[in-house]
């Protein structure tokens, strides 16, 4: 069943930049059922990595492991210089307390499929809230930053609206601005356009493209193969909790070598 050979191909882009995410043999189980069977994965600073794969293959689970929303059960996961969830001291991994975990997550932004904007806050409050409450930024500084971010995602005129007054595409752009407000070193996207009506997908993708162009490091779980082809430095195909194939988009998407990758791509393309 799981005879897929794990290819140890380093990403084609052999940059000298340090890896910001490095996963080696990451395993994760839910109630004894293992869903990640040993994931190998690397992202370097400034890279965009897209994760594709069928529903239930473990894409979201792996993404959530990266910022510690899920705890791994085996293997090694080093993100932004830390073993996620632990401090290595005297040859032992000491578990983080909630405060240390929070400090780690401040450096990693996440954008969810269902947007998850805070329902009791306006768009502007959604963006500024973490800057004020978590980074202890002054209200004035946070307001200026919020105005700038909302402008970047094209929503200046909607700053005072509550989430339920915004379209899905607008909500997702606010969510991106909210994540950016923390000045993250790494931005995670979990199918950011899957909950959107087709005509709203492009406005979110174009914001993500311009983010990528600024050199933001991004890990994007997506079904938008066109986006992956255009923006990604590396594409990873995940199947049943294993990385089956990875490489630059022109190789993986245009000339997949694995039968499973070919089968998956023929379905979604």
């Amino acid at each position, binding site marked *: 069943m799981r005879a897929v050979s794990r290819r140890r191909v380093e990403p084609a882009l052999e940059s000298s930049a340090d890896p910001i995410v490095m996963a080696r043999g990451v395993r994760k189980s839910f109630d004894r059922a293992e869903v990640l069977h040993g994931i190998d994965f690397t992202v370097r600073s400034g890279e965009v990595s897209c994760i594709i794969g069928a529903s239930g293959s473990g894409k979201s689970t792996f993404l959530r492991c990266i*910022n510690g929303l899920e705890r791994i059960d085996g293997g090694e996961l080093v993100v932004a210089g830390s073993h996620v969830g632990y401090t290595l001291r005297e040859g032992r991994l000491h578990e983080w307390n909630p405060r240390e975990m929070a400090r780690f997550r401040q450096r990693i932004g996440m954008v969810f499929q269902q947007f998850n904007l805070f329902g*009791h806050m306006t768009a502007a409050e959604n963006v500024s809230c973490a800057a004020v409450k978590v980074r202890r930024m002054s209200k004035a500084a946070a307001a200026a930053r919020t105005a700038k971010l909302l402008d970047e995602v094209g929503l200046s005129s909607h700053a005072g609206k*509550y989430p*339920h007054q915004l379209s899905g595409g607008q909500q997702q752009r606010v969510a991106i601005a909210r994540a950016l407000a923390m000045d993250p070193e790494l931005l995670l996207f979990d199918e950011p356009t899957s909950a959107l009506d087709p005509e709203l997908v492009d406005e979110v993708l174009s914001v993500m493209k311009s983010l990528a162009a600024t050199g933001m490091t991004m890990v994007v779980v997506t079904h938008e193969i066109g986006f992956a082809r255009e923006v990604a430095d590396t594409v990873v195909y995940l199947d049943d909790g294993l990385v089956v194939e990875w490489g630059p988009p022109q190789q993986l998407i245009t000339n997949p070598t694995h039968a499973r990758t070919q089968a998956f791509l023929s379905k979604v393309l």
Partner: protein
Amino acid sequence: MIAVIVLDVGETTAEADGREYPVVHLKHWGRWFVAALFLAIFCWLAYVYATSPNISWGQVGHYLFFPAILSGVKVTIELSLEATVIGLVLGVVLAVMRISRNPVTAGLAALYIWFFRGTPVLVQLIFWYNLALVFPTLSLGIPGTSAGLSWQTNSVMTGFNAAMLGLGLNLAAYAAETVRAGIQAVGAGQSEAALALGMTPSQRMRVIVLPQALRIIIPPIGNEFISMLKTTSLVYVVAGTDLMTNASHIYLTNGEVIELLIVASLWYLAMTAVATVLQTILERRFGEATQPRSSRLKLKSSLSSASSLMGR
């Protein structure tokens, strides 16, 4: 098939001819009939009570603003407010304990809720009032040293304080379950987004979850408060001086039971009316942000629609 049926049923064939026709509204005869019926019953009841030789309305008027009644109203309001504040604060703490992953705190909260919901308030009030039987003095200090403060229990546990504590601790058990339901009704996505932004679990609770839970919590807590206004009448057992106790003291001496019960009821109704208005205002205030627009309009128009409900 369907088209044929429609043509069969239609009595006339309408055509858009661009003209404005006057509209004849449907007459709601049933509504008129029911309204008239209830109005008649109400008028009859009012007439019977107003003319009854056994009710002295002059005395009702006389006692309505009697000093003992007014001071009773004041005590009832104070007691209800303070007990509700105690109940709410403790209720939030208990709710958070109850859903915590620590089995000891969760178990303690469950035990508290079981105990205080499971015993009569009356018994709890008497227990607090008689705390001196078990703890003759209350002291606050550092164990093993003589430093600290100490009070006679009986001087602290006045009727009012025992009542406030008893009612507050009792309400906390009920409020805890309400708050817990409110917290759990806030989607998991909100919590995850808060954590992903780098909030600590306590920031997530205070900044994101509780404010959104309020919308769900306010109506039942309003209920509890209105119920509390009347539960305060139980404090007669601890020598309270609330509205009901004071009213009963008066009728026990002058025998005008019905008149004083009417006086008390009028005051309870007035307090409940004020509380209801406050609840509506709070609901609007906290519902605004999170309510979908359609139901928000419904809330606003529900008042005006009540007047137009009768149809034309």
